[in-house]
């Protein structure tokens, strides 16, 4: 089985583009979750939006994006408020509060899906979990020349356009509120004494995560969203001590994971002579995990090997000092 240019442009380019945009957007906002020690908020929110998606779908009766998105956003906001309420008023630790809220909401979503299925509409919990990257098609291009044709670009699939818009939104908000995000993340108490609404920014970050997650669902599913919210920022965190660099680096690593993962899933099996490709969303998550593993092992100052080398240096320094001191002794 050979790969034609037209097939590559029609099938792989839009899927790859969608994956890259999802990964870039998630990695960017994920930094603020990781720095706030709320990495699991991504996990919680991406599960908790399920009932909202289904409700939007049931109310509108179509697979239009807008109602599902609104429903999901409402569910995410509800989840955020509930988690805070249970944590603060109920005095449970945040992990348990998240665990309660997202499992119960996800369960509600699963039951609602079954009800929807009973009334003859097709919605699939599997799709929410691991997406349908492979079904995004860009039918316009016929060859490399089409890449220069504005008409072909205008026919870009809706999912890709939505994801592009969401990435632009994330980028704009992070740039616009960079200063405030930094201070409310680092020292919320100081922020509120300065009159910056730290609580509002907490919910803002949750909602931004939710928006990204929802836009990404259809294409890649919730698992890839969770992976991309955490793994690239965590990797970047091990490679730099400067916030701006961390943000840029995490987006770059996210894109790298998307390209490598998609490539491995779509073309790896073909090169090995197999018929079908593997699940791309899962493979991208695995690629992000491998990047994290490399950062953990080989990060220059914070990696395990780097640290070990520093300790080794210190040890030789100490022993040579000790030897020198011994030498001086009569």
């Amino acid at each position, binding site marked *: 089985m050979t790969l034609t240019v037209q097939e590559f442009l029609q099938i792989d380019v839009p899927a790859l583009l969608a994956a890259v945009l999802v990964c870039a957007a998630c990695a960017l906002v994920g930094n603020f979750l990781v720095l706030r020690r709320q990495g*699991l908020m991504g996990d919680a929110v991406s599960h908790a939006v399920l009932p909202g998606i289904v409700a939007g779908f049931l109310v509108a009766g179509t697979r239009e994006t807008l109602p599902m998105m609104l429903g999901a956003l409402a569910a995410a906001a509800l989840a955020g408020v509930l988690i805070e309420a249970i944590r603060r008023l109920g*005095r449970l*630790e945040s992990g348990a509060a998240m665990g309660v809220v997202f499992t119960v909401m996800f369960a509600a979503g*699963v*039951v609602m899906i*079954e009800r929807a299925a009973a009334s003859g509409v097709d919605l699939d919990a599997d799709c929410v*979990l691991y997406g349908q990257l492979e079904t995004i098609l860009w039918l316009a291009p016929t060859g490399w020349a089409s890449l220069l044709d504005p008409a072909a670009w205008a026919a870009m699939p809706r999912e890709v356009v939505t994801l592009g818009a969401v990435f632009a939104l994330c980028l704009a908000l992070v740039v616009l509120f960079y200063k405030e995000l930094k201070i409310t993340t680092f020292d919320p108490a100081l922020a509120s004494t300065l009159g910056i609404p730290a609580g509002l920014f907490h919910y803002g970050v949750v909602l931004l995560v939710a928006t990204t997650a929802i836009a990404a669902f259809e294409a890649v599913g919730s698992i*890839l969203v969770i992976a991309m919210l955490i793994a690239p920022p965590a990797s970047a965190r091990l490679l730099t001590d400067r916030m701006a660099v961390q943000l840029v680096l995490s987006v770059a690593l996210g894109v790298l994971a998307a390209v490598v993962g998609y490539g491995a899933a779509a073309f790896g099996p073909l090169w090995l002579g197999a018929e079908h490709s593997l*699940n791309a969303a899962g493979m991208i998550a695995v690629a992000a995990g491998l990047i994290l593993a490399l950062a953990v092992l080989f990060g220059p100052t914070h990696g395990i090997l780097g640290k070990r080398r520093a300790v080794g240096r210190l040890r030789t320094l100490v022993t040579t000092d000790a030897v020198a001191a011994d030498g001086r002794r009569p």
Partner: protein
Amino acid sequence: MIPAIMDEAWRILTFQAGFNSAVVVAGTAALGLAGGTVGTFLLLRRRALVSDALSHATLPGIAIAFLIGAALGLPGRSLPLLLAGAVASGVLGLLTIQALVRHTRLTEDAAIGAVLSVFFGLGIVLLSLIQNLELGGQAGLKTFILGQTAAMAQGEAVGIGLLAAAAAAAVALLFKELRVLAFDPGFAAVQGWPVARLDLLLMGLAALVTVIGLQTVGLILVVALLIVPPAAARFWTDRLSTLTVVAALIGALSGWLGATLSALLPKLPAGAVIVLVAGAIFLVSFLFAPARGLVAVALRQARLRLDFAERRALSVLLGGGSVKGMLGAWLGLRGFVRTGTLTERGREAARAAERNRRLWDRFLTDYPTLIPAHVNWGVDPIDDVLPVDMVRMLEERGAS
């Protein structure tokens, strides 16, 4: 129609709807019981979401075990093999989280999130590989993700029930040790308790509950069995032994009711129904539990604020000032104020409040170390808290 369903529900709830459904319901209740007991200690150890990573991390193990089974030519779906794979990769996930937290600057939440999603991602890749290989018996694999009680064979249900009971029994036997572990691991280590091994045991029990819950509840929701019942029980009590028992009861009740409901409505996925029942119990506890529930706490807070506002207003009035607005109206309602001035009752209450404040102040000045730890000094009336002769002595000192 409705009476028929009610009747059926009653028969299932009371284990009269045939042996098979009785076994499934009892097995699920035992699973909930085990989840509640083990989960209590996970909650107190602040490890609630570690078990989420654990359950997600089982997927690649299940897939690999399936592939191994297929390669060895075992019949499609050998449950023990699959569960062994689940345990192996779940434990590997746990160890990875531990290593990340110990050896890098990453915090636990990031480590959990990364392990959870990457392992699950790998599991999905492997599932798509299995699908491509078109092996037999793979249809059952997906039930591990969302769970299905209907698929539970009678033998499996008995096995689940026995294992769950064993997990709960292990917690009961090691209650003293686990209590020390949950309360103060540092102290426990200094005292010579094998903290690392106890922690491992606790995670092992969590892994056991997760794996036997995979089939019923599914790997996404099984964590709810470990988190929701103890979290709900937390609102009812501050005592660990009571907490464990209440959590176990809530878990068992969720499993029992949930399995019954899903037997009545077979279209609904059992795991989701069980979690929803547990969620409903949590909501009731969160709102209405008398010990730490939202309504009770809010009422107590409001009462305290009102008490202080009232006392302050009374002392203002006693000093010749005036109190307006809501508070003025409230004092009128209480009969303390009429037409802007204190009534006889109001005067009395104001004097009592002044005296209470003065005596507490005196007490705190003279005997600051004697403050009884359990009383709300300065808030409660001093006569209710301190012995009569003590109060009299304070009064005499205040007068001199």
